[in-house]
C-alpha cells in the first residue's frame, strides 16, 4: 500500500485501520508489516468478510486508511539480548522491530512458529534483514517440533522477550516470562469497534496501577480487583507483568 506518511512514521507493532469498501462494517485493523520507500505492506489471512473483500480488491484501488495507530515496542537497553517470539500471523508485528534492532546492533534472536511448514509466513522478509530464524512447527514438519514458547524455554535465556501471536501463545509466553523474571512485551489483539479509543469495546484486564489502565477509582461494591486498558489506544503493546489472564 502506498502512503508516504504511514510508511515514514510507522513504528514497531503499530497498525492501520482500513475502511474496506462493501457493506457496512467497522474498520479492519491490520498490523503494519514492512514499511519503506513510501509504501507499507500488511500480512493477513481471509478470516471473514472484510479480509476477504480486501484480498479481492483490484490493485490501485484507493482505500481509506487511518494510521499508524497504537503504541510501540520499547527498545532494549544497551547490551541487552532480545528475543522476538512470533506465532503465526503475529509475525506481522515484527518486521519494523527487527529492522530497528538490526540498526541498533542489538543481539537479537527470532523464534517463528506456525502450525506446519506450509503455513510459515514472514520468514523471507526477516531473513532479508540479516537474521537467522529459529523455526518451530506444531506438527514438526520443519524446525523445532513444538510451540514457540517451548522453544524459548529450551534456549539460553534472553533479557527481553517480544511476543505477538494467538492468545493461547501469548498467555503461555507471559506465564513463562513472569515465572522466569524476564522482561516481556506483547502486542495484543481484540475485536475492535472504533480503533481510536472512543468506544471501550476492545479492553483487556490489566493489574490495578498499570499506567495504561483507566485509573478509575474502585467503586465501593466492585469485586473485581483489576483495571481495563484499551488495546487499540493504550496498547497494542503491554508488559507481561501488567496483563491478567482471567479465563
Amino acid at each position: 500500500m502506498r502512503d508516504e506518511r504511514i510508511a515514514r512514521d510507522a513504528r514497531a507493532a503499530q497498525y492501520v485501520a482500513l475502511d474496506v469498501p462493501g457493506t457496512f462494517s467497522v474498520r479492519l485493523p491490520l498490523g503494519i508489516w514492512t514499511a519503506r520507500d513510501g509504501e507499507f505492506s500488511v500480512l493477513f489471512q481471509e478470516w471473514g468478510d472484510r479480509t476477504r473483500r480486501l484480498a479481492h480488491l483490484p490493485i490501485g484501488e484507493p482505500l481509506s486508511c487511518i494510521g499508524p495507530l497504537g503504541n510501540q515496542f520499547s527498545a532494549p537497553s544497551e547490551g541487552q539480548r532480545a528475543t522476538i517470539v512470533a506465532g503465526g500471523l503475529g509475525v506481522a508485528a515484527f518486521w519494523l522491530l527487527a529492522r530497528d534492532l538490526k540498526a541498533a546492533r542489538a543481539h537479537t534472536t527470532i523464534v517463528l512458529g506456525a502450525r506446519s511448514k506450509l503455513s510459515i509466513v514472514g520468514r523471507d522478509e526477516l531473513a532479508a534483514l540479516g537474521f537467522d530464524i529459529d523455526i518451530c512447527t506444531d506438527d514438526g514438519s520443519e524446525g523445532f517440533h513444538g510451540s514457540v514458547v517451548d522453544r524459548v524455554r529450551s534456549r539460553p535465556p534472553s533479557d527481553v522477550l517480544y511476543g505477538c501471536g494467538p492468545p493461547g501463545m501469548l498467555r503461555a509466553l507471559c506465564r513463562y516470562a513472569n515465572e522466569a523474571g524476564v522482561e516481556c512485551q506483547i502486542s495484543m489483539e481484540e475485536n475492535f469497534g472504533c480503533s481510536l479509543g472512543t468506544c471501550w469495546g476492545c479492553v483487556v484486564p490489566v493489574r490495578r496501577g498499570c499506567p495504561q489502565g483507566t485509573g478509575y477509582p474502585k467503586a465501593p461494591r466492585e469485586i473485581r480487583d483489576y483495571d481495563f486498558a484499551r488495546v487499540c489506544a493504550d496498547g497494542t503493546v503491554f508488559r507481561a507483568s501488567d496483563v491478567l489472564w482471567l479465563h
Partner: protein
Amino acid sequence: MAALSTSSALDMSVRIGSALLKNPIIAASGCYNRGAEYSRVTDISQYGAITLKSVTRQPRLGNEMPRTMSTPAGMLNAIGLQGPGIEYFLKADAPALAHVPTAVIASVAGFTVEEFAYVAERMDGIPNVVALELDVSCPNVDREGECFAAQPSSIAAVVAAVKKRARLPVIAKLMPNVSDLKPIAKAAQEAGADALSLINAVRGIAIDVKNALPLLANVTGGLTGPAIRPIAVHAVWEVASAVTIPLIGMGGIETGRDALEFLFAGAGAVAIGTANFRRPDVHMEVLAGIVAEMRGRGCERVTSLTGLANPRFAGSRSVEAAVARPKTHLEGAHE
C-alpha cells in the same frame, strides 16, 4: 466561529430547550468519548454538538470481553457503561471539555432515580455543556428489574427528579424495545423533558454456532448501525405524532439521505454513532447532504424540513416558536 462554507445564507441552527446548536448533527453517546480522539482525524467543530459517554454515580469497569461483534449491516455492543463515575469525571475529564470546539451534551446514566438526579445536578456548570441527556435505556447493564424507559411512570419519575435539580435542558433517551413508545414519550414530555433522543441500541444476541455459546460475554448486546435504521425512523415517526418537544433521531445514519429520513419523519436533529467508526468525516458528509437538499428545495431553515413526510407531525417547525427560555452563551455561535 467561521460559517460553514457550504451553508452560508442557510440557517442550520436548531434549538434543544434553551440550547441553540449551530447545526442539527450530533455525535451519539458512547461513540465519541470526549471528542479528543476524533479531533486527530477529523474536524469535530462541524458537529452541532457531541454527546459524551454516559456517566454514572460510581465508577464502573463495565462488562467482560468480548464486548463487540460485527453483524450484518451493524454491530452488537455490550460495553456495560464503563466509566469513571461522576467525581472522577469532574476532576479528570470535565476541565478539558472547555477545549471542545463545539457544544457538548453530557449523558447521565443511573440505577435509581436519585442517582440520575445527583449526577445530573453535579453536571451543572461544566464549561461547554449545554444540555443533559438521560440514558434511561441502556440495553447492556443489569438493572435488577427493568429499564426506566420501559414504563411511562418510571421515565416520568427520572425526568421530574432531574428537572428539579438540574438547570440545563434535559433530553430523555428512549429505546425501541417497548410495545408502544407514545405513552412513554408523552410521560417524559409531561414530566418536563425538553427533548427526546431516539433510539438507543436495539437489544440483540449473536451465538457462536461452532461452540454453541453466546458471542458476547454479556450475552445480550445493543444492535446499532444501518441494520436498525428503519426501526429508528419508525420510532421517530410514532413519537412525532405524540409530543411537541424536539426529537433527536438516531440509528444507522451514514449519509445525508439517511439523516433526511429522520428529519422528514419528525426529528429536529439527528445523531450519528457507529458510522463514525468507519468514516470519521461522516458528519460533514451528512451536513453537506442536508444542505444540498435544502438548496434543492429552496428552503432556508433546516427546521423547515422537520416532519415533511409525516402528516401527523405534532411539533413545531419554526425556531422562534420553540423559544420559550432565555438565550444561552451559545447564541450567535452560528452565522
